[in-house]
């Protein structure tokens, strides 16, 4: 089925063949974003068993062009998507014959300068938002509040999510906050309030680090040493620019359908339909976790529980590593790393790949073969979903 197809074949397939995280840290000494980018790229190529000479496509937004030049990779296809969406974009490029081996890399060091704990790429500039003192915690809190009003979701439900993900990081030797737990929901609720209902420990951290993913045409698999992981389905929901308009739960569009509070629902529906599988087939959920509530929201939007049931669902242990729906198993942006706009999201895909390869260490979900990975959230008006598996569909 995946023999040595002609590169221009309409049936050409691509797979993720290499992943790598550089060391992550709150602050990394003597490194630059560019240096981390190269380190991450070489790590992912080594994981794949491929060389720099094999690469004929690059996405490292916003540094892709510079990386192509500095690594002398031209002429190369250049990707433009950031975060999770870079993966389906690269696979489409290969499957349409535009490239054979695409390197996706992202890294950040030295970006958290001003007011060290607000991610600078999230600072609102819109004249109808900025004077009201908005920042990501407040934007996402405005969404969470609507859910609490409508469904009775509680701070305790949110704290259960944060404690679960932080405990995953506590057990992950590669996490920035390795060994910093264990956490109970009471510990989350006892941390200082940032933007209610979010306490400090309901929020992501800030950190530095790099990561990379290598995607290759199936006809290159004989050269690859890692187990290939396939993109079974993907979807991307966008409602507008992030951090420029009120993040209303009820923001909708002219076609009707899901509203912003359910952003990712259409993306997930499309991803599952394309994959030809359904929710019970998923073994592990590598959900983007900028704030605790986003996990509850995504479990509902992606159809793993009914609207409004996300709070009681997480309270019943479903999302633990040993539960029916393990989430964000490396510790996510709360405990693993939160190094820049693109790395934090690509790292959901990297963790999904590690899980289905059986390389997730102490947080391995037994026999995981299908992972759903997501990036974005209702506070930012977008969500991107990918479903990964060890067997092509």
């Amino acid at each position, binding site marked *: 089925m995946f023999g040595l197809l002609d590169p221009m074949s309409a049936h050409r397939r691509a797979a993720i063949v290499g992943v790598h995280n550089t060391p992550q840290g709150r602050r990394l000494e003597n490194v630059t974003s560019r240096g981390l980018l190269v380190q991450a790229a070489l790590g992912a190529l080594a994981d794949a068993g491929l060389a720099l000479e094999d690469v004929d496509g690059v996405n490292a937004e916003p540094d892709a062009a510079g990386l192509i030049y500095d690594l002398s990779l031209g002429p190369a296809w250049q990707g433009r998507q950031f975060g999770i969406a870079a993966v389906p974009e690269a696979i489409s490029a290969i499957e349409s014959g535009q490239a054979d081996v695409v390197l996706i890399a992202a890294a950040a060091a030295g970006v958290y300068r001003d*007011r060290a704990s607000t991610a600078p790429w999230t600072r609102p500039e*819109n004249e109808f938002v900025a*004077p009201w*003192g908005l920042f990501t915690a407040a934007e996402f809190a405005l969404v969470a509040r609507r859910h609490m009003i409508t469904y009775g979701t509680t701070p305790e439900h949110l704290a259960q999510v944060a404690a679960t993900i932080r405990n995953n990081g506590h057990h992950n030797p590669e996490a920035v906050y390795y060994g910093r737990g264990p956490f109970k929901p009471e510990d989350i609720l006892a941390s200082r309030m940032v933007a209610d209902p979010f306490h400090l420990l309901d929020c992501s951290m800030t950190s530095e680090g790099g990561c990379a993913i290598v995607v290759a045409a199936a006809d290159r698999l004989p050269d690859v040493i890692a187990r290939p992981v396939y993109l079974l389905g993907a979807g991307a929901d966008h409602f507008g620019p992030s951090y420029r308009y009120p993040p209303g739960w009820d923001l909708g569009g002219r076609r009707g359908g899901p509203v912003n509070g359910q952003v990712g629902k259409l993306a997930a529906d499309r991803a599952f339909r394309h994959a030809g599988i359904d929710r019970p087939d998923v073994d592990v959920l590598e959900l983007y976790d900028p704030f605790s509530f986003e996990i509850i929201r995504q479990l509902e939007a992606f159809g793993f529980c009914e609207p409004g049931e996300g709070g009681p669902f997480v309270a019943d242990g479903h999302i633990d590593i040993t539960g029916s729906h393990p989430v964000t198993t490396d510790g996510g942006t709360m405990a693993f790393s939160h190094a820049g706009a693109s790395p934090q999201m690509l790292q959901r895909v990297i963790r999904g790949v590690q899980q289905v390869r059986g390389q997730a260490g102490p947080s391995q979900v037994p026999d995981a073969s299908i992972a759903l990975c997501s990036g974005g959230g209702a506070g930012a008006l977008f969500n991107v979903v990918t479903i990964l598996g060890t067997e092509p569909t």
Partner: protein
Amino acid sequence: MTRPLAAPLSPQHGHLPHAEPSPVTRPFWEGCAAGELLFQRCRGCRAAQFPPAEHCRACLETDLGWERGAGLGSLYSWTVVHRPVTPAFTVPYTPAIVDLDEGYQMMTNLIGVAPEAITPDLAVQVEFHDTAGGLRLPYFRPRGTA
């Protein structure tokens, strides 16, 4: 014994971040300076629109007029911020989304109420306050408390 409520939330006074208005948005800020809450209304489909744009987001009509709103609405969502986005902001402050009676939403800060006393769908009214640098902002407070 009931715990006493915290002090009512206050408007800001510092040098707040504010983008330079464009020709499309300037009438709104001129309205604020005059103590009037303005919004766009489409002369084609009559939809209320905010923030302003060159086209009606509903029917794409370009014939949009400015109207003065009553400044009355209800609270859609809010968050009490205890860690300011920049040192220009004094905490606590309360970013909020308000549903205006004319049929649009806007971002604001809620004032004149203790954080613990805020309730969903609270009836609110606009109140303008000057911040440093001559920026006059429309805040909202519980109706009838001015």
